[in-house]
């Protein structure tokens, strides 16, 4: 695998940095994570750190040296980290569950897979174009999707910080199926907190990354976000990977697979945590009684 990773993080005008970013790799897989702990809630940086560490630990455990299923890995790792925050809040005796956003990306076999919760973003930039930008789980993104707001006005909207989903919140986040795309040579994956993308327009991000070698472009972009953020500049974090290989050759044209034991995939139970707490002994007995009752009404011949 040929790639380069550049990372930059700044406190901005805040007292401390609640953003976390990190990357891990094996010979065949790379993991990138950015988490933005939520300032309005106690210990946002704890949440960001816990989530990043959990995903990294899962990666170190499962990538040997490749992940069997990167999509499923991210779906589970991100989904579980919500439950981990709930548990750690109790263990650490915190008065409130710490909350964070997260965006995590795995690159394996020349393909990028990503998952996110909240307003931390992933951009996939190719040949001077934004090929992919994750949709934030925010009220303003919803307004943009409904055609009631322009994308570049998102950062000036009074309700811009209103998240519809986060990790550690009261509501269990609904983790979306993992998205993925094949990478081509010189593609850039940019993972960032809203401190970076907020003050910048889409064009500025695109031109900032496309215009110079990554090692110069990333710090320059972070500096620009800090300047444009002015006195209210948030924590700023950018983590970028430049891909150095030609696009993996994929079989074009019609495609079928040999018919094997196509196995049924079960998505993670852990992703829906609070729900299963309700399955008590009485619930089990009741379910069995119901089934027996149905069998009695409808006896086997």
């Amino acid at each position, binding site marked *: 695998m040929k790639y380069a990773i550049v990372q930059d993080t700044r406190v901005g005008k805040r007292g401390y940095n609640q953003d976390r970013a990190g990357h891990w790799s094996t010979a065949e897989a790379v993991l990138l994570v950015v988490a933005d702990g939520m300032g309005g809630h106690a210990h946002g940086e704890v949440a960001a750190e816990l989530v990043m560490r959990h995903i990294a630990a899962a990666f170190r455990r499962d990538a040997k040296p490749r992940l069997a299923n990167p999509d499923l890995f991210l779906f589970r790792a991100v989904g579980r980290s919500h439950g981990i925050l709930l548990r750690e809040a109790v263990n650490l005796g915190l008065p409130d569950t710490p909350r964070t956003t997260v965006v995590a990306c795995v690159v394996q076999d020349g393909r990028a897979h990503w998952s996110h919760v909240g307003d931390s973003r992933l951009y996939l930039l190719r040949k001077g174009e934004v090929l992919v930008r994750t949709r934030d789980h925010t009220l303003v993104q919803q307004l943009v999707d409904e055609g009631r707001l322009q994308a570049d006005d998102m950062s000036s909207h009074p309700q811009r910080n209103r998240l519809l989903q986060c990790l550690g919140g009261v509501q269990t986040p609904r983790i979306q199926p993992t998205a993925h795309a094949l990478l081509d040579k010189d593609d850039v994956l940019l993972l960032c907190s809203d401190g970076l993308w907020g003050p910048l327009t889409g064009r500025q991000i695109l031109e900032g990354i496309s215009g110079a070698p990554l090692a110069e472009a990333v710090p320059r972009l972070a500096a620009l976000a800090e300047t444009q953020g002015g006195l209210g500049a948030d924590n700023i974090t950018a983590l970028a990977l430049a891909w150095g290989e030609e696009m993996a050759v994929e079989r074009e044209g019609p495609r*079928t697979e040999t018919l094997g034991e*196509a*196995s049924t995939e079960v998505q993670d139970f852990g992703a829906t945590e609070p729900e299963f707490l309700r*399955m008590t002994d009485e619930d089990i007995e009741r*379910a*069995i009684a119901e*089934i*027996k009752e*149905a069998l009695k009404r409808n006896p086997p011949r």
Partner: protein
Amino acid sequence: MPAQANQPLPQGHQLQNYRILRVLASGGFSFVYLAHDENDTPVAIKEYLPASLALRTGDALEPEVSEDQAAAYRYGMKCFFEEGRALAGLGHPNVVRVLNFFRANETVYLVMRYERGRTLLEHIHAKRGSLRESWIRNTFATLMNGLREVHTNKLLHLDIKPGNVYLRSDGTPLLIDFGAARQMLSGEAPTLPPMYTPGFASPEHHTDRSKLGPWSDIYSVGATLYACLTASSPPSAEERLEKERILPARKAGAGKYSSELLDTVDWCMRLDHLERPQSGFALQKALLGEKQPEYRGAAPMLEQLKGALKRMAGR
């Protein structure tokens, strides 16, 4: 996900009034055993034992469930109960029959009538992909009786595939493995974890689960028919949505099967759920030749050429 090897119940083990003979199948979610009841009638017993959450080793009967997985383990039982509940109310010759359901060894068991035969998957492999059109039409039209009964009871199977269609020794088909089955139109949000098989699951499985309906099972029946025609598994709906590159049945099976049958298969596998047969009844009629498929694919190049040549020769 660590693939742990769970120990099956030992041969000869007495489980309530059933004696375990051997393991019929094992999956990531359960074991299925062949057993005899007190009258020596053979039954198939499915044991809930999700490999990722519970571990049974050595001589222990009760699986070990780590403390932080205990809740998830209990939650997974819900899926198992759904299966029991789905099947208990159904009594149809083309649907597997449930006989009993009980709790033991810190887990739950589903007892089903044992049928002699083999799965459609095994049949396709044994026939090396040379299934006759009349056989396919008859078998699937009969199978639709079972699926119609499922849908009539407001249930969706949601995991129809060659491995989950069973052929009795006399050739009659039945639907098995309702582990993914769900109630439809049950006001409740679908909170159970989605289960699916890539290649056979409909696009709604991947995108918008609120759109799941009888047409989703129809998609899977189409994919299963596709597997009969080509002895291969179609690309997953997820891949098709990203980039359509399925070889349509109309092309894959040209020359071997009638264009009506091939169009019927492609009709079932339309990505837009509204463009598929909307009910098992509609598909059944098409399979029985009582109704033309409402989708017509482009004839392959060779057929077009032949047609053109015939027209020229006839001039």
